[in-house]
C-alpha cells in the first residue's frame, strides 16, 4: 500500500467539470427568500481525476478480496460476485419503491420463505437495514406483543455481560430497562444468577448463541423455560448465526424473535461499514404484529436482500449442511494450532470463533501491538478488546471460505509474532511498519476534533 495524501476537495480547480448532462433551456425560478445564497463549495474536478483519486484511495484499503480477515463476530466470508451481477439487473435497480413490481415482490416472498426454513421462524420483516436496527425492531415487536395482551408493566430486559454493545443500546432506545446477567467461569450465562432477575415485569431476554466467546449456551433449554414461564420472550441476536447455518435452527431452541445479519451469515459485502441488512423473524405467536411496526422508509435494503437470496439459492439444501460445520472446523483448527503461544482462557470446543487472552509470554507486548504487527504481514487483525470479560482479548473468526493453506499462513505468522515478543518486543510496540500510516494519534483526534475539510485545514 502506498501513502496517497489527497482529498478530492483539494483537487478542485475553478472551471473544471466532471459531469455529463445535456444543456438546460432555462433556470430554476424561486422567490428571493427561498433561494440558496451561500456558495456551494463542492469539488470542481475532471472525470479522469475523480477516477484516479478514488482508485488511489482504494489502494490504501484492505478487503476480504485482498486477504484473510479473521474479525471475530463479523463473519468476513467471501462475497460472491454473481450476487453483485444479479443485484444490478436494470429491472430491479430501476424499480421505484412505491411501484408494483411482481418480480421483486417474489424476491421478498422467497427470501421470507427460505429464511424461515433456515431459522425455524414463521415470517420475517426486511425493513431493518443492519443488525442493530434489527435488534431495535425485534425489541419493539417484543414490547408490542406484551402491549397487545394488555401487559403494560413488562419494561425490564435481561442482557448477558458478554453481549455486544448494540444489545443494551437497542434496549434503551426501545424504552426497556437493561438488567445484566453475569457469565460464569465457563464463559456461559450463569443460570443461578439469572433466577433472581425473572419476574412478571420481565419483557424478555436477549441472547447470542453461540455467545460472543464463541461458546454454545448449552443451558439454553433451561433458560428458555425459565423466561417463558414468567411470561417473557426470548430474543436471538443472529450476529453469531454462522456456525448454526445448516445445523441448528434458533426457532427450535425456543426463540420467539430473532434478527439475522445478511452482511455476515449470508455473504453480502460489508461495504466499509454498510449497507447491511438485519431482517427480523418471529414465530407464529407474533407474526400478526409484523405489519404494525414501521422502522424504515420503504422495504429495507432491497439490493442486499437480492444478494442474500442468490446466496441461499447457490447453497441450496445440499451445501447449506456444511456451511456452519466448516466454519466451526476452521475456528477450532486455528485455536488448537496456536494454544501453545497464546493464552486460551476457556478450553473447550468452540463454534465459529474463539478468544485468546493475549500472549502466553507477553514481555510487555499488548494485544494491540500483536494486532498492529499482523498488518505488516498482510493480514487484517482479529477483533481486539471485545468482549470485555478478559483484558487482552483477541477474538478470531476465520469463516468457512478460508482454505487450510491460508490458515496455516496465519498460524505461522502468529507464532512468529509470539517469538518477536520475546526476542524483539520493540518491533511490535512500534508496529505497523509497512502500512501507509502508523499509530494515528486518536487522543488528538478526540481532543481537537476536525471533522470536515475547510480550505485552511
Amino acid at each position, binding site marked *: 500500500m502506498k501513502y496517497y495524501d489527497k*482529498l478530492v476537495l483539494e483537487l478542485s480547480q475553478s472551471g473544471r*467539470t466532471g459531469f455529463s448532462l445535456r444543456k438546460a433551456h432555462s433556470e430554476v425560478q424561486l422567490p428571493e427568500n*427561498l433561494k440558496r445564497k451561500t*456558495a*456551494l463549495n*463542492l469539488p470542481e474536478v475532471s*472525470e479522469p481525476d*475523480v*477516477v484516479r483519486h*478514488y482508485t488511489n484511495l482504494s489502494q490504501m*484499503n*484492505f*478487503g476480504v478480496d*485482498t486477504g484473510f480477515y479473521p*474479525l471475530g463476530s463479523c463473519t468476513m466470508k467471501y462475497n460472491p460476485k454473481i450476487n*453483485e451481477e444479479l443485484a444490478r439487473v436494470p429491472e430491479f435497480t430501476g*424499480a*421505484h419503491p412505491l411501484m408494483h*413490481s411482481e418480480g421483486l415482490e*417474489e*424476491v421478498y416472498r422467497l427470501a421470507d420463505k427460505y429464511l424461515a426454513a433456515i431459522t425455524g421462524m414463521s415470517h420475517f420483516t426486511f425493513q431493518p437495514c443492519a*443488525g442493530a*436496527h434489527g435488534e431495535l425492531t425485534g*425489541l419493539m415487536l417484543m*414490547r408490542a406483543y406484551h402491549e397487545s395482551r394488555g401487559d403494560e408493566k413488562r419494561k425490564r430486559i435481561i442482557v448477558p455481560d458478554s453481549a455486544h*454493545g448494540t444489545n443494551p443500546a437497542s*434496549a*434503551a*432506545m426501545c424504552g426497556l430497562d437493561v438488567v445484566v446477567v453475569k457469565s460464569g467461569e465457563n464463559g456461559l450465562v450463569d443460570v443461578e444468577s439469572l433466577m433472581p432477575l425473572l419476574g412478571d415485569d420481565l419483557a424478555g431476554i436477549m441472547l447470542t448463541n453461540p455467545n460472543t466467546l464463541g461458546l*454454545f449456551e448449552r443451558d439454553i*433449554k433451561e433458560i428458555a423455560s425459565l423466561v417463558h414461564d414468567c411470561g417473557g420472550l426470548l430474543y436471538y441476536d443472529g450476529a453469531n448465526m454462522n456456525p448454526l447455518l*445448516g445445523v441448528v435452527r434458533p426457532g*427450535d431452541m425456543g426463540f420467539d424473535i430473532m434478527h439475522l445479519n445478511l*452482511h455476515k451469515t449470508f455473504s453480502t459485502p*460489508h461495504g466499509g*461499514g*454498510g449497507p447491511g441488512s438485519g431482517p427480523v423473524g418471529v414465530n407464529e405467536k407474533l407474526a400478526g404484529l409484523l405489519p404494525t411496526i414501521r422502522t424504515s*422508509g420503504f*422495504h429495507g435494503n*432491497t439490493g*442486499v436482500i437480492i444478494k442474500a437470496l*442468490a446466496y441461499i439459492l447457490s*447453497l*441450496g439444501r445440499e451445501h447449506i449442511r*456444511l456451511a456452519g460445520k*466448516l466454519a466451526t*472446523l476452521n475456528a*477450532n483448527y486455528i485455536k488448537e494450532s496456536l494454544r501453545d503461544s497464546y493464552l486460551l482462557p476457556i478450553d473447550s*470446543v468452540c463454534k465459529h470463533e474463539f478468544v485468546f487472552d493475549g500472549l502466553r509470554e507477553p514481555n510487555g507486548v499488548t494485544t494491540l501491538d500483536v494486532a498492529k504487527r499482523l498488518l505488516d504481514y498482510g493480514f487484517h487483525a482479529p477483533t481486539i478488546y471485545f468482549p470485555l470479560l478478559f483484558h487482552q482479548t483477541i477474538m478470531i473468526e476465520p469463516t*468457512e471460505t478460508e*482454505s487450510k493453506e491460508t490458515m496455516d499462513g496465519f498460524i505461522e505468522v502468529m507464532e512468529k509474532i509470539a517469538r518477536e515478543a520475546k526476542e524483539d518486543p520493540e518491533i511490535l510496540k512500534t508496529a505497523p511498519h509497512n*502500512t*501507509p500510516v*502508523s499509530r*494515528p*494519534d486518536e487522543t*488528538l483526534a*478526540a481532543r481537537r*476534533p476536525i*471533522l470536515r475539510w475547510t480550505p485552511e485545514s
Partner: protein
Amino acid sequence: MAEHFAYFPHTEKDINEMLERISLSSLEDLYSDVPSDFIYKGEYDLPEAMSEEELRRFFGELAKKSPKKKVFVGQGAYDHYTPSVIEYICSRSEFLTAYTPYQAEISQGTLRYIFEYQSMICELTGMDVSNASMYDGATAAAEAMRLCVSSCRGRNRVLVSESLLPNIVETLKTYAHFAGIELAFISVEDGETSHSALEGMLGTDVAGVIVPSVNRFGVVEDHEGFSALIHEAGAYMVEYCDPSTLAVVKTPGEWGADVAVGDGQSLGIPLCYGGPYVGFMACRSELMRKLPGRVVGQTLDKEGRRAYVLTLQAREQHIRREKATSNICSNQSLMALWVTVYLSLMGPRGMKRVNDLSFEGAHLLKKELLETGLFEDVLSDKPFIKEFVLKPLCDVTALQESLCDAGYFAALQTAEGYVTFCVTEKYTEDDIKGLVEVVKSLK
C-alpha cells in the same frame, strides 16, 4: 461429501487433517455440546443448489415479471441520473469487501472518503458537523427526534409537520411510541407547514420541531420566522431536506436550523425498490457530541503524516452501551462513497444543471397536463422544483392503469386525493409528451 461447492475450499484430505489436529473424529463432534434434539436432522426446505447459469436464468425470469417503467413519481425516491463512474468505483473490492475501518492503518481509503462525505454534506446543508451516515432519511429523522429530546432536559414533546412524507411520519411515530416521546402534528395550511399552528403549539414541553425543506407536495416551504420562534421557545429546529435541491433552495443552515437530516438517494443512487439508500445527519457544532453514529476525524500518525480515524467513539454503543447516543453500528458506508463520488463529479455546476433540467421538465409537464382539462391546479402560487400535485378530474385508477400499460409510473395518489408527479433531468421532452399523450387518450 456432496457435489463440491465453489465457495468451500475444503477437500476430504483437508478435513481429515484438521480433525486430527483438533483430536475429533467427525464434523458432528464439533456440536457435541448442543442438545441433540436441537441438531436439525431433516432436509432443509430449500430448493436444490443452483449453478451460476441457473441463477442468471432464475433472476432473469423474475426481471421479466417487473418490466422497467419511466418513473414520474418522487415521494422520497427520485429517479436522477447515475454517472457511469460511480458503479465502477464502488465495485472496487477494496471498498466493497472491506469492513468498518477500526484498523485505521489499512483503512485510510474508507476513512478518507467518509471525511470527504462529511465535508460535502456540511457544504450542502450549511451545517458544521456531519456523521458518517445513517440507514435512510426516515431513520435519520427519528434519530434527530431523539437528539432533540436528549439535548433538552425535562422536555419530551416533538412537533412534526403534516407536510412530511407519510412513511417518515410513520417511522417517527414508531420510534416515539417505544421511546416514550410524545409527538404532536403541525397542520398544513395552503400546501405547507402552518406558521400560526406552529406558534400555537410551542411551549415549555417542546424539545424539537421537524419540518421539511421541500414537502410531500413538492412545495418549497417558506420557513421565515420559524427558527426565531422555535429558539425563543427553547426548542431545536430540524429540517428534513432533499439534498439534491439544496444546490438551489435555501439551506437548513440559512434557515437557522440546528439539525439537517434527509436521504442522500437523490444524489445519484438508483431507485432499487427502496434501498440501499443513505440517511444523513448534520448539525451545529454545539450538538457535535450528541450526534449518533460514527464520525471520522483528521489527525497525525506517529511520523507526523496526515491520517484519518474513527473518533468521538465514546458516544457509541460499543463503549457507552445503554447510555450511547444511539444503537447504530453498521451504517450505509458504501452508499456514502456513492454519494461522495457523485458530488465530486457534479460539482456546483452539475448540481445546478440537475435542478435546472428537473425544474424545466416538471413545469412543462404540469402545464401540459393542465391543458388536457383532466386536472385542476392546486397550490398554484406555491413554488416547486421537480415534484407537484394536481387534483384529478378523471378516474384515477383508469389513469394509473393506462400510464402503467404505456410504460409509465406516474400519478400516485396522495391522502388528500391529489395525484403526484415528478420529473428529473433523466427524462426528455419526448418522454413528457409521451406521458401527456397517454393522458389525453382518456378523454
